């Protein structure tokens, strides 16, 4: 176990995302985050981090706060208290206009995915890559790979409006892992999926993790959580918005800084935008 302090101190220094990851492996770090909905606490002082090439599965019953936690991780929601760090930047204090530069580095898949219905599955997946700055040709190439990866190559040219709910979820998963981005956030990835598809989902998330992405998945399904843990993932139990069991500090794995040359390559090009944006704009007065 290691104390959080050195890593936190590192985060306050002006270093690039690549330099940051050479010393601090955490792509995402949630520090004492709290979130309320209608005055009711949904997330209560949660602290944990997801390092690159790490898979974390958040397991909890319906209403335990998994989806809210994942929205915080995907920069789609700002905590009422605490801080969310992404690649060494406290994104809780960023201006609204700076958040897109964070989101484009995160692949986000939900049970009710937002897709452009009139576009093809291929275009939907490629759109995420285009937002990250890929050329149309490269984006389409990577999108085809991602669709093939999740076993949906035959859906490429089909308009999303003609797909079933399950097929839409598969396309959303392909979009989330395409690239892959620095962080993949998957909310109930196995919901409504058959055995074969669940096996594919587990394989894809594991492969994305192996490719260097940090993977954060949430599920109420213990069998899916078990399969992800068997793949080398770590499990966090969420109960009524709190991490059950070990204290937050206990979730942080041992870490010894390694020289940059020994680290596997991670697709970090888009993070440059984040740095430029963060350095170019004043920090927002965020929650305490």
């Amino acid at each position, binding site marked *: 176990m290691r104390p959080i302090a050195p890593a936190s101190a590192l985060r306050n220094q002006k270093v690039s995302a690549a330099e940051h990851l050479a010393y601090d492996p955490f792509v995402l770090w949630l520090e004492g985050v709290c979130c309320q909905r209608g005055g009711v606490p949904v997330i209560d002082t949660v602290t944990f981090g997801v390092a690159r090439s790490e898979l974390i599965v958040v397991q909890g019953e319906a209403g335990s706060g998994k989806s809210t936690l994942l929205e915080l991780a995907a920069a789609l929601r700002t905590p*009422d208290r605490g801080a969310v760090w992404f690649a060494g930047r406290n994104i809780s204090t960023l201006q*609204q206009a700076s958040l897109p530069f964070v989101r484009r580095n995160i692949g986000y898949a939900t049970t009710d995915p937002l897709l452009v219905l009139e576009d093809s599955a291929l275009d939907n997946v490629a759109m995420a890559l*285009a937002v990250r700055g890929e050329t*149309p040709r490269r984006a389409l190439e990577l999108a085809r790979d991602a669709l093939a990866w999740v076993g949906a190559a035959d859906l490429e040219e089909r308009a999303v409006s003609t797909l079933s709910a399950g097929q839409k979820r598969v396309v959303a998963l392909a979009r989330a892992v395409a690239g892959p981005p620095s962080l993949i956030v998957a909310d109930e990835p196995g919901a409504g999926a058959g055995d074969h598809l669940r096996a594919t989902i587990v394989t894809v998330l594991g492969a994305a993790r192996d490719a260097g992405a940090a993977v954060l998945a949430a599920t109420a399904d213990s069998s899916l959580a078990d399969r992800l843990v068997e793949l080398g993932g770590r499990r966090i139990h969420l109960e009524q918005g709190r991490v059950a069991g070990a204290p937050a500090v206990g979730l942080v794995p041992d870490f010894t800084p390694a020289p940059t040359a020994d680290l596997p390559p991670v697709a970090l090009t888009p993070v440059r935008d984040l740095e430029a944006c963060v350095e170019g704009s004043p920090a927002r007065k965020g929650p305490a």
Partner: protein
Amino acid sequence: MRAAWVLRTVRRQAGLHRLTVLAAGASFFLLALLAGTSRLGARVVARWGGLVGQNVHLLVYLGDEMDEGTSRDLAEILRRVPTVAQVAIVEPTQAFARFKTSALSFGADGKTVETLEPAYFPRSIEVRLIPASDLETRADDLAKRLRGVPGVVQVDAMGAGLSRLSAWSSFGKRLGAGALIALALLDVVAFVAVFVRLRTALARRAAVLVQLGETTSGIRLPSGLWMAVAAAIGGAVAATTLSLLWRPLVARIEHSLGILGTSPLPALGRAEVATGLAVLIAFGMALGCFATPVPQSDSHG
């Protein structure tokens, strides 16, 4: 998002929303046509005002016994009448020249016209009164008094012509303004429909892009661009239509009304067309951008 991807999105969105693009193009065409027609219409009305009877309200024909000096004295007296705006003496040669121009424009035989002599036309005085609602009454009064002056052969108060002209002019102006207002309202309705349709069609795409991390300007740019293209095409077609059809149409109307103008028919200048197009493109860009709703995804608690 790279420029290549933005252009790809513009092309694909324009293809997906063909009807909206067509409706937008038609709305911009109508807007440009209305603006151009109003501008040119105002110029044509001004030209007609100057041409119709040269703004003459009273024609005083003088006999041969009235020499040039006496004619000038009479003109001078008329100039001092309070309601008179302008007085001009028309010599027989001038009157002949005008007649010749008119006759030839109506297709009269040139040889026949040439056989006439300028001396056949009497010397006359043209009187223009200060415009007011009692113009006809004042013209009649002055005509009555002039008829008693020795040397004055005939006075034409142009009563019937004046009242008809004023009635037609007022009717024409109202009709033109009414038609323009009706078309402008129709255009406003079309623009509102395009805006609402676009907003509905692009809402989901915008929400998806927000989740994927696209910036507000990046989300709005493609729709702004293709609306700007629709505006440019609509405006260019309207400018071409006006340049091709306006002059022949006005010439035809003038011919049928017997209006003879020597000055060229009004047209839109290059700078006016360029300014109009620039304004239209900016309007299209703004319409496209603001029709794209960008939801605020970030929220507390």
